[in-house]
């Protein structure tokens, strides 16, 4: 799954595959019956779990408080980050700043190489995915052992995570069993495909890695500025091993993960588990502050990544996306995600949040990135559940505007731009509109047979691929109105 052509000491980025547009990637996903079944099952069970536990009576107030905390953190981000750096340094840790993915890879690689370790254990980290860390480590001859069960499955499968919290949501038990039989040393050939047995097999494999590991790499859910504390939520307990057993601990986080005060966690630690899995509390909540002599890691490094986040922050509407606490609730209720899965959204950030985050971090120049804001019907189910009240449809529409503006600057106008401009010009005047309406109606009636249109030309042909259109009546409403006595 990884190329090993890099020379040691150089953080060579894995060559990014050309990502297809959302619609193209989605088409393949839609045709994959097994994927469809797995996604239906995974999202339905997550929705059920969220629905099963009663919403706390003050849920709306909690959401509002969560929104305010995250907004405040973002509003004064520079001050909070300075405070965080001071606190981490005072506690014996070191803070590293990475402007982009390449710099972050270089920093992490240098830190690992300085320890001389040939192997690292990894706990869940979306930022590690974002910067393509595994590829860079492999290129330098360093093995990354994923310790989160689902990440292990993704690693063995050689593909990408398809969900924020359940990265292997696209796999079923039988597929996981197969991957384990091929990839895990010592997995018994009669391994059943039930969850408990699979977890047991993975655990046996992981334990060995923990005991030998000298370097751990983790993500963080929150960074508390006033105390310099990193906080991580997980349900398996493996991340906790990563935090305690190795000598060197490297934590990766986006700069937006900061919250001002310890007390802010009171709200966020209620919101996140509920939205993620309908739980009052996540099984394991770990927090660590710098280093403690004689206990746990002897060196702690916090790598803070920008990679487009300050650009998003500068956008009045778009910055709401940075409030995200990665709970996945928006994925679990999204009717588009349920049918396409996460891979169609490109690497790292899937679902509705990915559709507003990725184009902001990467820009909208490429066709793939520009297609993401359009990967939604704007149905609003995501905004209804988001614990920090991100109005995802609003941001989507805003980003669509950015896509169109960027296309306007191109020397040759797109057919869509010409059509939309023409339409707006026609609609700009009632007489023009009515003349076009009469022409259009006549033309559409010619295309129809038995009251329905089965094939439309040009851009509209996409509609009639699978849907009819009724033939328009000969008389429009406005014509009828004029004729009324």
């Amino acid at each position, binding site marked *: 799954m990884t190329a090993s052509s890099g020379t040691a000491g150089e953080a060579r980025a894995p060559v990014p595959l050309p990502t297809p547009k959302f619609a193209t990637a*989605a088409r393949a996903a839609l045709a994959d019956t097994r994927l469809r079944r797995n996604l239906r099952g995974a999202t339905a069970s997550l929705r059920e779990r969220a629905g099963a536990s009663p919403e706390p009576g003050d849920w709306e107030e909690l959401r509002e408080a969560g929104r305010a905390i995250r907004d405040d953190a973002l509003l004064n981000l520079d001050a909070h980050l300075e405070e965080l750096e001071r606190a981490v340094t005072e506690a014996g840790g070191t803070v590293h700043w990475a402007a982009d993915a390449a710099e972050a890879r270089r920093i992490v690689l240098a830190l690992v190489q300085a320890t001389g370790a040939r192997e690292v254990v990894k706990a869940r980290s979306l930022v590690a995915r974002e910067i393509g860390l595994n590829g860079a480590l492999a290129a330098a001859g360093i093995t990354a052992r994923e310790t989160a069960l689902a990440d292990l499955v993704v690693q063995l499968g050689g593909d990408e995570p398809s969900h924020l919290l359940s990265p292997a949501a696209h796999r079923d038990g039988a597929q996981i069993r197969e991957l384990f039989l091929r990839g895990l040393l010592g997995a018994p050939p009669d391994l059943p495909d039930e969850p408990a047995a699979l977890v047991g097999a993975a655990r046996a494999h992981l334990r060995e890695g923990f005991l030998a590991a000298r370097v751990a790499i983790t993500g963080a859910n929150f960074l508390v500025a006033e105390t310099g504390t990193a906080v991580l939520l997980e349900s398996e307990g493996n991340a906790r091993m990563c935090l305690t057993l190795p000598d060197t601990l490297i934590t990766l986080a986006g700069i937006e993960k900061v919250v001002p005060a310890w007390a802010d966690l009171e709200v966020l630690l209620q919101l996140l588990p509920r939205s993620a899995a309908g739980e009052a509390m996540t099984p394991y909540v770990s927090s660590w502050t710098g280093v403690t002599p004689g206990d746990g890691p002897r060196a702690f490094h916090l790598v803070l990544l920008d990679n487009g986040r300050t650009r998003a922050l500068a956008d009045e509407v778009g910055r709401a996306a940075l409030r995200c606490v990665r709970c996945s609730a928006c994925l679990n209720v999204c009717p588009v995600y349920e049918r396409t899965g996460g891979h169609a959204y490109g690497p790292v950030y899937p679902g509705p949040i990915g559709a507003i985050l990725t184009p902001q971090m990467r820009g909208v120049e490429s066709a793939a990135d520009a297609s993401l804001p359009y990967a939604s*019907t704007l149905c609003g189910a995501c905004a209804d559940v988001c614990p920090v009240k991100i109005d995802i449809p609003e941001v989507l529409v805003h980003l669509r505007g950015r896509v169109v503006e960027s296309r306007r600057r191109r020397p040759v106008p797109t057919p869509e731009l010409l059509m939309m401009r023409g339409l707006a010009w026609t609609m700009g005047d009632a007489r023009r509109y009515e003349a076009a309406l009469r022409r259009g109606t006549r033309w559409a009636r010619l295309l129809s047979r038995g009251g329905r249109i089965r094939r439309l030309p040009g851009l509209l042909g996409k509609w009639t691929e699978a849907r009819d*259109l009724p033939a328009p009546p000969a008389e429009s409403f406005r014509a009828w109105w004029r004729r009324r006595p």
Partner: protein
Amino acid sequence: MRVALFVACFDDAMFPATGKAVTSLLERLGHEVSYPPGQTCCGQVHWTTGYHREAAALARGFTGAFEGSEAVVTASASCAVAVRDAYPRIARSARDPGLARAAEGLAVYELTEFLVDVLGVTDLGAYFPHRVTYHPTCQSLRTLGVADRPLRLLRAVRGLELVELPAAEECCGFGGAFAMKNADVSVAMVADKVRHVRDTGADVVCAADNSCLAHIGGALSRLRGGVRVMHLAEILAETGPV
């Protein structure tokens, strides 16, 4: 009351029966209906597809056409959302405070809101002896929050057997430009919607927005599903043989 009718361009061309039904409903209730002739298109599609400059121009035209109206009523939930919810945003993105003021000055209602909240009626004396199911479109359900108003109106219709639509609140997959740009996903979504509609055994599926109905109806028609789509207003306007 003097009601200015706002007929979505889509309804004007493709579904004039809806506007006629709204007219006859309101007149039956004793209100004076006008149709401001300057209206064309509210700009919804331009706005949601990202053509924000064009949307601003259309929004200016719209507010001009309806200026001074006592109440603007539309049978298109998504167009009501465009004017009420999106115009302030369109004005902000176009840096046009005049447009924001003009939009604020308009009292725009979606039909079921207007009937239930403003006029305070649920029984419109309609008679429609068919088995009917109702699809709450995303914009009427989530953005406007019409809640059970359409159902209350339907329950008062004589002869009508209302059957509940399974997974009613799931999007039908229309989404404006989405239906074309992501046609495959859109079709996968409407396939499930159509399956649920057919499971109810209804003769008619209705909604408060013809755009979603064109999508559901287009799929039903292609599949020869034997279920008719009808705008809610057209059901409410049916009085049957007197």
